[in-house]
């Protein structure tokens, strides 16, 4: 018996106000696995994550064909707050920390949808364990932290939601290689500790290679290829078309 995927997209098409953004997207994430979507700017990576997390509506977009299945149920078009409660948490592109709130309040906000205080406290312990610098910054305004620390806050906030599926949108964007390596290490650690599944969006090979096993290549709103992340990243043509100059 093959295991049912945590996440499955079947021929998904998304439009923003009548303009097609992605089409015929089919992909799957198996339980406990980490999958990467690689592609250049404007390929539709963020759009696919929004289709999974329920944030399309916020941007005036809509899934108009196909469906999104999460743990065997159809969640196409479900509201973001419901999806968070079901265990889908997204780390937004460009971090989007609550700049004027303290790090502690950012983390608290991440647990908004959860009731179980013990579990929330457990998540917070794990986050501070993964990102020890945040422990010293708990009382500081998140907007005043460095880019890398803000990314840790953004990831920590998503983990506070107790995800079974973690969506990450270009977490390496604008960060120094050493910081990227730290964050990749933390993400590997989370996977072994919690067994959560990951759908990562990237344009840089470092994070993709360190965190995921399998990748899809996306271009102009369509999936062009898929395979083992290591194989795809080793391919010169893939590097030039899908990873641009940043690879």
């Amino acid at each position: 018996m093959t295991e049912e995927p945590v996440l499955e997209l079947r021929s998904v098409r998304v439009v923003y106000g009548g303009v097609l953004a992605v089409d015929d997207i089919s992909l799957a994430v198996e339980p406990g696995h980490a999958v990467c979507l690689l592609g250049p700017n404007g390929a539709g990576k963020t759009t696919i994550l929004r289709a999974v997390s329920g944030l399309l509506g916020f941007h005036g977009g809509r899934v108009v064909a196909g469906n999104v299945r999460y743990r065997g149920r159809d969640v196409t078009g479900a509201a973001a707050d419901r999806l968070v409660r079901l265990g889908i948490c997204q780390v937004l592109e460009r971090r989007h920390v609550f700049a004027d709130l303290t790090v502690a309040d950012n983390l608290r906000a991440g647990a908004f949808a959860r009731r179980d205080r013990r579990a929330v406290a457990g998540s917070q312990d794990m986050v501070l364990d993964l990102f020890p610098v945040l422990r010293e910054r708990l009382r500081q305004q998140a907007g005043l932290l460095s880019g890398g620390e803000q990314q840790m806050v953004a990831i920590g906030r998503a983990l506070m939601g107790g995800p079974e599926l973690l969506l990450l949108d270009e977490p390496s964007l604008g960060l120094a290689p050493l910081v990227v390596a730290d964050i990749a290490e933390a993400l590997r650690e989370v996977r072994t500790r919690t067994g959560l599944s990951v759908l990562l969006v990237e344009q840089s090979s470092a994070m993709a290679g360190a965190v995921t096993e399998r990748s899809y290549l996306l271009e102009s709103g369509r999936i062009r290829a898929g395979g083992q992340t290591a194989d795809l990243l080793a391919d010169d043509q893939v590097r030039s078309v899908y990873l641009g100059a940043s690879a």
Partner: protein
Amino acid sequence: MSTFVPLLFAGVALGAIYALIALGFTVVYRASRVINFAQGGLLALGAFVTSWMVLDEHLPFWAAFVCGTLLTGLLGLAFQLWVVRFAIGRPEFTIVMLTLGLASVIGGVLPTLFGNNPRSNGDVWGASSVHVGSYQFFWVQIWTIIAAIVVLLVYGAFTRFTKYGLAMRGTALDPEAATAVGIPLRRVYATTWFIAAVVACIGGVFLGGYPSTVNPTMGNIALLAFPAIILGGLDSPTGAIVGGFSIGVVQEMVQGYQPQHAAWLGNDFYLIAPYLVMILVLLVRPYGLFGSRPAERL
């Protein structure tokens, strides 16, 4: 200076009401960027409903006060859920017109339901006062100040320590991130309208106390609260409070001193003074005392 203390006291009492109106306004504005011109209408409505429950239905004042506050709060909530909600994302002008519409509906309905005559707010203090030395303070004004301070403290604790308070702050800062962590924006918006209407009602009941009355035009006071709102910074509750109290004091001081010392400015100069203060502050600080600059960080 025998007039200074009474003027200061009256200014603080008036400022307490401005602070409540301004707070209700900023709570809504911060979360959803909706400029709520119905605040004055809700204030008058709350005052009338409370007065009606005491004078016509013979409820004890405090019970009527609580019921009136809740009823007004629910009306604010209903207006958000049934009207404003569908206009979110439309041009700001549309929403402003909707809130003006609510204000004029309330303005039209109040005289029909309760008559045009000014009435008592039904409070338990009336014109009773306390003498301290040579000064006389009306109990209703003392309670206005106490009530405003309590409301402001409760609001502060709510935003700081509760889940929905945190959700309100998060939504104000970054609605997309708020949505991403599972905060239902609609419920946050609804909560802000409830709070705005509740504080409007509290302000209205106290505004209708001695020597003033509950009357259909009392909602116009919201226009005088505007300088307080803008002075403090549109999106800052702290600013609303500081702005409210300052404008109240400025207005009473001008009303008290200007007729003897600068009579040539005319009889109604005290109504203009708040706007002058507002303009002066805006020249120095374009976003008000506590307003936030538009986010330009990447």
